């Protein structure tokens, strides 16, 4: 069974907690390398309480694995001196922490009204055609995860599409098609601001607070 099939649970089960319940794979550990453990330690000691490093450390796991497997939650718990359940309770709350294998590029299309009024819903439907239904979890080629996004706070540029959370302004269906094609060819186009999006692992490093260490991942727009 392919990974995509394994995760093709009925739509109505696709909320994150349910996802976790049906999650029947994990990864072999350890997921945090010795180097990543040192980084984790540095992040945790930055805050007045170590627990505040929860989200950054979960992003660090995502930067290593490409998603957040249970094994990663165990290791975060270990670093923070918490139980795995305490970490899992947090990880299941936040939509940017991916609890199942997902594409290397997350394509988020905002369909909140300011974007929808200017055709975002059709854009989403077109993306689904191009990437296949399975892309709502992960596309067959493992490249894409398609998400319908809430307002991205860029409504003046509607309709907005984000690739790994870098924004593309006023995207037409033709532009969307060529964006997807270019990503398939390994050459994602530059976002409207913030340069060329890295893969989800790279962006997760930035989100973990390590962006200024490796500024090259997010270049000047």
């Amino acid at each position, binding site marked *: 069974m392919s990974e995509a099939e394994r995760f093709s649970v*009925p*739509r*109505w*089960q*696709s*909320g*994150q*907690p349910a996802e976790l319940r049906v999650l029947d794979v994990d990864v072999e550990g350890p997921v945090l390398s010795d180097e990543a453990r040192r980084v984790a330690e540095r992040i945790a000691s*930055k805050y*007045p*309480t170590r*627990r*505040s490093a*929860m*989200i*950054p450390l*979960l*992003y660090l796991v995502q930067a290593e694995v490409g998603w957040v497997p249970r094994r990663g939650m165990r290791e975060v718990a270990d670093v*923070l001196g918490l139980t795995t359940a305490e970490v899992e*309770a*947090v990880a299941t*709350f*936040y*939509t*940017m*922490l991916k609890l199942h294998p997902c594409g290397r590029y997350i394509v*988020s299309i905002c*369909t*909140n*009204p*300011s974007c*929808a*009024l*200017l*055709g975002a*819903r*059709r854009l*989403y*439907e077109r993306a*689904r055609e191009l990437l296949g239904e399975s892309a709502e979890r992960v596309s067959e080629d493992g490249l894409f995860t398609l998400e*319908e996004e*809430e*307002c*991205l*706070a*860029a*409504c*003046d540029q*509607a309709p907005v599409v984000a690739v790994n*959370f*870098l*924004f593309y302004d006023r995207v037409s269906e033709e532009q969307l098609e060529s964006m997807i094609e270019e990503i398939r060819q390994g050459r994602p186009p530059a*976002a409207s*601001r*913030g340069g060329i999006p890295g893969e989800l692992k790279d962006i997760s490093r930035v*989100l973990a*607070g390590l*962006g*200024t260490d490796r500024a090259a991942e*997010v270049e000047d727009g």
Partner: protein
Amino acid sequence: MAEFQPVLTARWGDPEAATLHGYERTGGYQALRKALSMDPAAVIEEVKSSGLRGRGGAGFPTGTKWSFIPQDTGKPVYVVVNFDESEPGTFNNRELIERDPHQLVEGAIICAYAVRCRTAFVYCRGEFVWPGTVLERAIAEAYEAGYLGKDILGSGFDLDVILHRGAGAYICGEETALLESLEGFRGQPRLRPPFPAVEGLYRSPTVINNVETLSCVPHIIDRGARWFASIGAGKSTGPGIFSVSGKVNRPGNYEAPMGTTARELIEGHAGGVRDGKRVKAWTPGGSSTPLLTAEHLDVQMGFDEVQAAGSLLGTKAMIVLDERDCVVDAVLRFTQFYAHESCGKCTPCREGTWWMTRVLRRVEQGRGRMEDIDLMQTVGQNMLFKSFCALADGAVSPIDSSIKYFRDEYEEHVRLGRCPLREESPRLEAASARSGGTTGALAQVLPEGIEVELGEVLG
């Protein structure tokens, strides 16, 4: 009155404004020098008398909030910048940071000095990968230049700033949910009182302010409270950035004095409605504020003025629908947002938003009953003011207000068994059959397609 000169957006045309050099060249960090020469209490007093009110939605007087911070608890004081901007239709914080991040950094340092805080946080919305990076760089530059760190500008005042990235949850913009999230928990609101000023981050006194609010502060210190208070109308002083989007010719952020009329913003700044159509409905302050109509375009965009018109100023985010757009569909899409973003802690919000989505969808798709309209009003009454935070109240706003002004349109849907405007308008309902969102407990139990008769359930 002299013509209004932009304040908060004055540097937006300058490509160098985002750099320390560009900011300093145009007078940046002079206000900080001035503040550091003042007594902290005098800084608070200045902000108080400027009349500045929070731009994050609630409009609480900023100086008053700062003055609530007790200095005798033996605990550290924290300042948290709320850069979670996620209220639908709102996009000025993002542009403020992308174009002029040091203005916020300077404002935050002055605030920290005033309340004697030594560690400040910025809670940055997760999706803001790029704006967050711009701000990270500005913070790094400020450290290098000695505006942050130890003994700032030889004043003896120390301050560290930590930028913390969220992970995709609207609720984390709500101040107490934000604190929970920053402490490493699920982002669920706390019961108040105690308010954050008394027991905030790590149970310590905490000031939480919006990016635009703090961006006003350097100007107040630099040019004086009296100057600031001379801009605006009534009890809404100073300049404000209005985010205008939807069916207008020139969507964008427009800076204008608080109290500018909606007409001037929509028809003037934003160039009026597309294709020469007319305004049908608009939000004054994001999707959580009751819709207004073409009748209300002369309302002044000030806190009290908008409230008097039956809505709220919120985040000054104006989403404009024109006469071709289906109000029921737009309200359904807003409601899907709230159902997705409800954190699940309070039952009226978690269940109410979800059930509302189903009733609205049924009406929008032409399967509704006349009673559904009253039913939604009843459900709304059972949601209002019954939760820890205002998310549910915000969710009721578009539903209640649209029934108030567009009841005909709801009835038309029921009578015709379809949307009367379908041919002309784009579809707004979410395209994916996404269900529960972050919590949505019930959504995962009931398969899509199973119709439960809500009227019967509620009796």
